């Protein structure tokens, strides 16, 4: 596939890794923000190509992982209703709520469907006016414009049986929460290339200056990641803390202004709980007043009894880059993709799932 295969070419990857080694004089710790980047790093063994001085830690960029338990419980309650068709990206189905998961609701007769796009859920609502179609709107800035478009299309089509359960989170406030923490180990960021395709990267200048941290907008293929790491290490070695763009084939400084316009037409910034991390001010999106008729929480008026997270799960510390998954005593033993304690073990972007799949685990089956 063009613009994919050539960025996975092994010789060029090794050349980039040698270039990183040539400029590295001391230890540096970088965080890749997006879970898609984490998976690519482990899948292609990029961390193993790098000089020993470079440590990659994995960031909070897994929307499925940070969706609060209370919202998962609300999703389960809505999905159990006999009048509801509950639509979700496949990633959410195995995420544990207080009692069970969406897969379990589906197995016991709930109409839970995996969709590729929120626009598919709108089409489904148009075909089934007798059913309530609910879409679980999980995601970062990358996904918010598509979900906003789904709401606008549902309104344009006069659909009264479509709603979304909003679990949108924003990346820059989470990066700032990590930088402001006394436990912060991050010396440089690889920012999330697809988030920045939507938002642009002008907003990162303040973070780079305030915390004196280089931020390199980075893509998802091996050569993208290696070039992003090179650019970040070069800034660190030269004592610079600037915002640079490695992923310029997709990301423009101003981002996608049309996507931003539609997103801010439908959503407004709000405070948001992050699972395992806690509340981060102004780090989420909620439907603006004219669109609240599409808010599933309002439509179904739910209150749920949410239980505490399993005490043994350190997902919050993994999501903040304080620990890597193999440091967790439950990793691969009491917590596996079949019996997860936390969401990062089941999400396709979760760091625990990435280590389990690509690096083996205590049972030795990996």
């Amino acid at each position, binding site marked *: 596939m063009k613009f994919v295969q050539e960025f996975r070419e092994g010789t060029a990857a090794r050349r980039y890794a040698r270039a990183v080694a*040539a400029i590295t004089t001391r230890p540096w710790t970088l965080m890749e923000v997006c879970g898609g980047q984490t998976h690519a790093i482990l899948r292609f063994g990029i961390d193993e190509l790098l000089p020993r001085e470079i440590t990659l830690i994995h960031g909070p960029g897994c929307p499925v992982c940070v969706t609060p338990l209370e919202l998962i419980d609300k999703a389960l309650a809505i999905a159990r209703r006999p009048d509801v068709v509950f639509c979700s990206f496949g990633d959410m189905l195995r995420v544990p709520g207080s009692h069970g998961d969406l897969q379990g609701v589906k197995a016991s007769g709930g109409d839970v469907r995996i969709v590729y796009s929120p626009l598919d859920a709108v089409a489904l609502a148009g075909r089934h006016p007798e059913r309530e179609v609910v879409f679980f709107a999980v995601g970062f800035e990358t996904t918010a414009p598509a979900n906003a478009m789904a709401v606008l299309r549902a309104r344009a089509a006069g659909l009264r049986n479509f709603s979304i359960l909003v679990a949108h989170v924003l990346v820059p406030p989470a990066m700032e929460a990590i930088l402001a923490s006394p436990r912060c180990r991050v010396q440089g960021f690889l920012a999330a290339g697809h988030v920045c395709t939507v938002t642009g990267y002008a907003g990162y200048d303040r973070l780079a200056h305030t915390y004196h941290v280089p931020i390199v907008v980075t893509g998802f293929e091996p050569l993208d990641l290696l070039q992003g790491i090179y650019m970040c290490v070069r800034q660190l070695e030269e004592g610079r803390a600037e915002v640079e763009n490695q992923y310029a*084939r997709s990301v423009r400084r101003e981002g996608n202004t049309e996507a931003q316009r539609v997103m801010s037409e439908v959503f407004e910034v709000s405070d948001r709980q992050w699972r395992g991390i806690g509340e981060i001010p102004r780090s989420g999106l909620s439907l603006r007043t004219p669109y609240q008729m599409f808010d599933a929480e309002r439509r179904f008026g739910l209150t749920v009894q949410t239980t505490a997270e399993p005490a043994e799960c350190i997902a919050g510390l993994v999501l903040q880059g304080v620990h890597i998954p193999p440091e967790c005593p439950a990793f691969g033993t009491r917590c596996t993709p079949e019996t997860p304690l936390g969401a990062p073990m089941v999400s396709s972007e979760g760091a625990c799932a990435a280590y389990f799949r690509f690096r083996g685990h205590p049972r030795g089956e990996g």
Partner: protein
Amino acid sequence: MCLAIPGRILTVTDDGALTRRGRVDFGGIVKEVSLAFVPEARIGDYVIVHVGVALSVVDEREAARVFEYLQEIEDTRELEIRDQETP
């Protein structure tokens, strides 16, 4: 979740700002994709697509820069990289 992949636009249907769409070829698999957020996209362009919605047109010139940049840093730092390769 933020997975987005490049595909080539085969057709464009332009019947409204919010419903502008096209058929996009992802290495042999063809899907209908919203082109509402990339009004500049034309047939033959590559777009980066996320959950059925194109978010950017691939800048082919910038794509080539990833390889040029590598060549440049090797040229300017040739000695250091060579040194490191010596056992």
